[in-house]
Structures are given as C-alpha cells and as structure tokens.
C-alpha cells in the first residue's frame, strides 16, 4: 500500500520534471496499443462481414445436383439422365457416416393469390432440416416447417420476408391463408431478414417453402431437384460428400468418378479459404501491432533506465536506511507497469473512440464494423503486461543491485 502510494508519487514527480520525455514514452505505448487493438478489431469486423455475406446461403452446407452421365458405366452409355427420389434420401440418411442432416429440395414456380393480388413465386418443397442448414430463421411470431407438417402433408407455407412484404405490406403475414397453385395454404412463418450474397435458386427472401411431401402430392412430381446436406463438422464435408457420391453412384448405377452425374458444391470451401485467409490476415496485423508495442516497450525500458540513473543516489540512501532489494525492484517495476498501463488505457480509449465513429464513414459494407471484442482486449492487455514487465525488469534489476555506498556518492 505504502509502496504503491510511493510509486504513484514518484511517477507524478517524473512526469512533472520530464514532461516531454514521459509524453513520448506514453505515446509509444498508446500508439502500440491503438495499433494492436485497431488491427485486431478491424480483423474481427472484416471476418464477421465476410461470414455474414456468405452464410446467408447456409451453415457450411454441401449442395448436390443430379445431372447427365459423362462416361459409360457397366454397359450403360453416357449422356444418361440421373434422377433421384425420396428413397435415395432415406438410404443416404441411413447409410452415410458423419452425416448431420440431409434434405431433398423440389422446386417450381407457382402463382400466389391473396385477395386481388397475383404474384409469381419460386416454391421449394423441403424437409424441416432446411431451417438450420440453410439459415432459414423464422421471424418473431412464426415457425419453420416441422415433422408433423411433413407427415400430414399439411398445406403450410414459410414465406421469404421480401415476398411477404410484397403480398401483405406492413400487415402480419403469419396466420393468413393464400392460394398457392390454386390450393389454400396457411402461412406459418416468415423469414427473419438476412444477408445473402450467394444462392443457387433465387434469394430466400423472395421464395416460399412448403413441406416436400405436400409439394409432391400437389404437383405429382417424383424426382427431386437437388439435395442439401451437412456433415457433423465442416472438416468432414469432403469425406461425407465422397460417401454420398459413392452411395448414389451405386444406387443409380453411374461411375463414382463421374463429375457430371452428380455435381457437388461445398460451400464450406470458401469458408475454409476465409478461415485461412483471415487467420493469416489477423496474424499479420497482430504481429505488426505487437512489434509496434515492443518498440514502445523498448522506449519505456530506456526511460526507466534513465529514471534509475537519475535516482541512483536516492536509491542508495533508501538502501542505506534499510530498503531491501525487493522494495527497490518492485518500486521500479510497478512504476513501469503504471506507465504502460496509462499508455494502454489511453490507447484503448482512442481505439474505442475510433471504432465508435467508424460506422459513420459508410465503409462497413466493405470492411465490416471494427469491434474491440473481449478477446482483443484480453490479448492486448496480456501483451501490454508482458511488455511492461520485461521493460521494467532490466532497469529494476539494475536498481536493486546497486551498491548503496557507491550509489550514495553520486
């Protein structure tokens, strides 16, 4: 307690007697802190933005479309159309290891009537699994399709938010009944607005989703348009895709080497790229910031060396009066940590300020919103602490090992 008060007092004294020097030192740390936090904050923001832009499509899903065979197989010629139905999905669901979710998707364009309005709408018949896989989050007050809807071939409709707006304006769509392809459908939910920059069958906010069973019964269709699936972890996507390809090749008799009989789009591939890219990017920024901080730390260490030199006589006197090495050491160390902490705090404040005003520049669309997350703060504080300790250690040890007789003579 006494030591701490003492340290603060000495710090004030140093600051007063060496204004410019202290300013420069603290500035070094402020600069380093701003660099580290801002770089990390922008890194975090950019990553969030990129994920947001692509995740609209789904959560690391794989999409598979059946097509025409491009090579002969077991006596069958090429150019044959591969068609898949619900049996294939059932088989895959049972037989594919590490599969988390799978759903068929049937698509068509229909007419939607409500009151006097008639609008063309792309409709997909899907399973409840679509909700999580494709990030089709229902807005407050609604729900997505459920297994009961599937079993009972219920005429229920989940509507994209833009479509709901075109049909109902500001009115609540949920609970209303519309005619879809001439049949009455109850709207059970609308899409929570989301960013979606990639798609394969139109943007979700303009679409409608109904149970696959209802779709088949209504349209008489047997063959699905595409499959959407997801593995237990994104890392397993490749392996699961391979199993699915082999399984379907076996069931539908085409070569597992045939790239066109079943085309696969692993949306995780771009995530994997982003992950690596962002890791490298954040790492680069972090290292640059750290180097800046290290330079700042060297500055602090230098200053503390000067402080020790200036205070040599005083330290000698204190030692003569019974101050132990520990006391001298911790005093200098504490003072260094204080300087570092003050610089760090100012740096944090500056960074937070910049992050707060940044969205007003209208660049968030491109680089996201910089955010000083707890992780960023923790990392910076950790680095600052280590730098402060190292910066203080050498001058402090120097001070503590002074010979009082010699020191007092100075």
């Amino acid at each position, binding site marked *: 307690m*006494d030591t701490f008060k003492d340290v603060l007092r000495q710090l004030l*004294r140093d600051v007063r007697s060496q204004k410019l020097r202290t300013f420069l030192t603290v500035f070094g740390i402020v600069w380093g802190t701003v660099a580290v936090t801002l770089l990390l904050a922008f890194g975090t923001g950019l990553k969030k933005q990129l994920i947001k832009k692509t995740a609209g499509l789904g959560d690391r899903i794989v999409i598979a479309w059946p097509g025409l065979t491009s090579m002969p197989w077991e006596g069958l010629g090429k150019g044959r159309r591969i068609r898949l139905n619900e049996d294939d999905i059932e088989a895959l669901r049972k037989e594919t290891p590490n599969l988390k979710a799978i759903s068929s998707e049937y698509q068509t364009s229909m007419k939607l009537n409500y009151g006097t309005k008639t609008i063309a709408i792309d409709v997909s018949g899907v399973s409840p699994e679509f909700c999580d896989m494709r990030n089709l989050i229902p807005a407050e007050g609604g729900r997505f399709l459920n297994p009961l809807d599937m079993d009972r071939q219920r005429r229920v409709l989940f509507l994209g938010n833009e479509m709901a707006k075109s049909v109902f304006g500001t009115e609540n769509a949920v609970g209303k009944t519309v005619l879809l392809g001439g049949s009455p459908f109850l709207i059970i939910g609308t899409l929570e607005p989301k960013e979606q920059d990639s798609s394969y069958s139109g943007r979700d906010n303009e679409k409608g989703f109904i149970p696959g069973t209802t779709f088949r019964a209504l349209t008489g269709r047997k063959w699905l348009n595409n499959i959407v699936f997801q593995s237990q972890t994104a890392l397993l996507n490749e392996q699961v895709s391979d199993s699915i390809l082999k399984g379907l090749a076996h069931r539908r008799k085409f070569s597992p080497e045939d790239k066109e009989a079943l085309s696969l789009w692993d949306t995780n591939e771009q995530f994997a790229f982003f992950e690596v890219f962002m890791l490298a990017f954040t790492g680069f920024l972090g290292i640059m910031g750290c180097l800046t901080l290290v330079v700042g730390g060297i500055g602090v260490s230098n200053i503390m060396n000067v402080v020790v030199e200036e205070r040599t006589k005083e330290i000698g*006197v*204190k030692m*003569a*009066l*019974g*101050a*132990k090495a520990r*006391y001298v050491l911790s005093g200098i160390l504490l003072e260094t940590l204080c300087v570092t902490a003050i610089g760090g705090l100012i740096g944090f404040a500056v960074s937070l300020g910049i992050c707060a005003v940044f969205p007003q520049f209208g660049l968030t669309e491109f680089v996201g919103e910089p955010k000083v997350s707890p992780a960023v703060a923790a990392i910076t504080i950790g680095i600052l602490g280590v730098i402060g300790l190292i910066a203080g250690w050498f001058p402090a040890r120097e001070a503590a090992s002074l010979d009082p007789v010699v020191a007092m003579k100075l």
Partner: protein
Amino acid sequence: MLALAENQPAPAKLGPQAVPAPSIIRMEEVRKVYDTGKVKLEALKGVNLDVTKGEFLAIVGPSGSGKSTLMNLIGCLDTATSGRYVLGGDDVSRVTRDQLAEIRNRRVGFVFQSFNLLPHISAAENVEMPLVFGGVPVKKRRDRSRELLERVGLGDRMDHKPTELSGGQMQRVAIARALAMEPDVVLADEPTGNLDTSAGGDIMALFQELWRGGSTLVVITHDPSLAKRAGRVVEVRDGRIVSDERTENRPG
C-alpha cells in the same frame, strides 16, 4: 570500564561496581580490500575495535586513511574482505544482502556529511523513511517523527522540504532520521563537514546530548576541537588504528 574496552574481560578483575557494559561493536582483524579490476587496494589492514554500549567514539585521521571504509563496515553498508565483525552480539561477517539491509534498518542510524535527505519529501517524511522500511504502521510513524523532530528542535519545520531548510537544520533532520528505529549505535561520517563552525558546534552539542541520553555514537571528524568532545578518540592511519585514547569527557 576503561580496561574492559581494550582487554578481554577477565572475571577476576571485576569489582562490584565495574559491571561490564555489553559490547555493541566488536571487530577482529578486519581487512577490506577494494578490487578495482587492475589494482587491489587494501583500505583496512587488520582492524581491531571494541565499542561498548553508551560510548561516544570519535574517529580521526588523515584523508584516505580508511575512516569512511571502516564506518561503512561498522554500519553494514559493506562487508569486510576478511576478519570477524560482531554487532550487538550477532556475527554479521557473512550475511546476505537482505539481512544487511535489515541490520541497517534496525541496528544502526546513519548521519552523512552531505545529509542525504530525500529532497522531494518533507522533513517528517524523511524521518519516517526508515520506519516505512521497518514496517511500522502509519499512525505510529507520524507520532514518532513528530517526537524526534521536536527533540532536535525542529518541531515547527515538520512539513518543510529539505531545500527549505538550512544546512544545520538538514543535519538535524538527518539525526532525527538516524534515531527513528532506536538503533544500537548512531554512525556519523563527518557530520559537520558541510557546516560552518557555529552550526557544526550545534550538531556536536546535539550528539553530546544524545550521549547523555544513553546513545552509543561513532563519529568521524577532521576537526580536533570536535573530537575533543567525545569520550574516546581513535586515530586511523593507512588502514590501521594507530591510537585509541580516552578523554576526560563523561556523558553527564
């Protein structure tokens, strides 16, 4: 008492009224060699010294003879190259740096020629310094520093910074500081060296007053008239004690 300081105490010699005062400082064949890399300089060449409780010892001698070196060893600011040093009954010839610091804090009080007060803090805070290192609680420290500054006649200068005091006043603050932890012995290295005759006389008078109060004092001085006020004068020449004489002075 006179005989005891120089010889081994022999029980047969002790009369009923000649109870030996306990020895505070006992040095046996103490040598100090300064090793400055190329040259080795023997500043003390075998010193034997015995100081008992309540003595007022003056150390005199020419410049460079080793007085300050001897004082630093007595005050545990430095350690001897060889020989034995017993301070207040404890052998302190070979102790750690931290133990030395603790001894300096509790057993000895220093008074320096150049005062060595910390210039940024008040007189009272300077006096409190050893108490801080000794772990004395704040309240007690305040009381003690007031009491000591009053005792050296600076009760009205408690909150003055050293720069706001005269040389004689600064040295009195230093003496108050030296007394703070109630040390076994007060050591002063030319305490009047930076003062004019009158201020120097005041300081010497203060030492005599402390002596009367029962303190043990060891004072280095160049001034023969000041040395005469002590109870015993030791002369150092070329790293050796060449004479050790008692004066007529008594504490009372």
